[in-house]
């Protein structure tokens, strides 16, 4: 896994632990972790990442676009790795010097 993905995964894992609160303390979070089946997250938990992602990455990561292809059911099947890859790709596309 590229090093930038490792850094993004660490960021995302820390956001997820804070979303999950006490329930997230023991949860192992890897690229293969699914939001619903592994973390018990509801769609609102996934959506509540939007504000944290915006605070961390600004407008370079368009989270609304990322989730707009998903419906309320498939958002639960999402893997952490899919979000991490999307963030890493989005950050790669930000023109140098910005």
């Amino acid at each position, binding site marked *: 896994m590229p090093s930038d993905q490792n850094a993004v995964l660490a960021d995302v894992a820390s956001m997820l632990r804070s*979303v*999950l609160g006490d*329930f997230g303390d023991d*949860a192992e979070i890897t690229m293969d972790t699914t939001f619903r089946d592994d*973390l*018990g*997250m*509801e*769609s*609102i*938990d*996934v*959506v*509540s990442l*939007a*504000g*944290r992602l915006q605070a961390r990455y600004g*407008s370079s990561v*368009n989270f*609304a*676009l990322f*989730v*707009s292809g*998903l*419906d*309320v059911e498939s*958002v639960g099947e999402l893997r952490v790795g899919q979000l991490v890859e999307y963030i890493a790709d989005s950050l790669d596309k930000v023109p140098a010097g910005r």
Partner: protein
Amino acid sequence: MSMVRANGVDLHVQEVAPIGEHRGTVVLVHGMTSDSMASWFLTLVHPLAEAGMRVLLYDLRGHGRSARPATGYRLDDFVDDLEALLAHWAVTEPVYVFGNSFGGTVAFTYAARHPDRVAGIVTIESAPPTATWFARMARRLARAAETLADADVVTHSRPLFARRVRDASALLAETDIGEQLPASALPDPAAFTAITCPVLCLYGADSAVQELAEETARLVPQSRHVVVAGQKHTLLIKAPDQVRAEVLPWLATRVH
């Protein structure tokens, strides 16, 4: 997570900026009990931003990741929350208010209160606050309370799953929404004649809510009504393509 204190309650909010030129502002209001801003976020937020809209969302009090006070669940409390949030967001232009189910009822009530502040209304599977509609909501709340009490027992052994059920059942178990909301003071039906903005109402063909369309059309005569075949009350989350196909062209003729 972005929390805002509005009308005395901590509400979970999100804002998505328009892509390109700003053409208008829309606030999205979700429905009762198991609903949250997620049903809007996953379906319409990005297309609305692409249409040049500043998109504002929140979880209703007691719902999603907003605070869950033990009391304060009358219709007017929900409308006061919307009013306080629009002040927080410093919205000065007339706003489009979209509401799913009970969210549409909040939209109609807010518009009756402040007709000059609303540019347009879109409702999905909803109605203004009529006695018929509130009687239905009372029955739905009672049924939801029974279902969730059963689910609680089944899932308590799995902590991460218990968390999901906990949030939905806590609203019904730990607050008085089941009693207070159905007992809300309803606006005088004449108040709805103040609403002169364009109104689009969507229904699922297999949902009983469309039986309320006739009364809505009488109260808000300019409202346009569209029935989507093969859909039930879950129209927004089950048929987002059809919802977008109705809402986006409707909006495009009004904001440009």
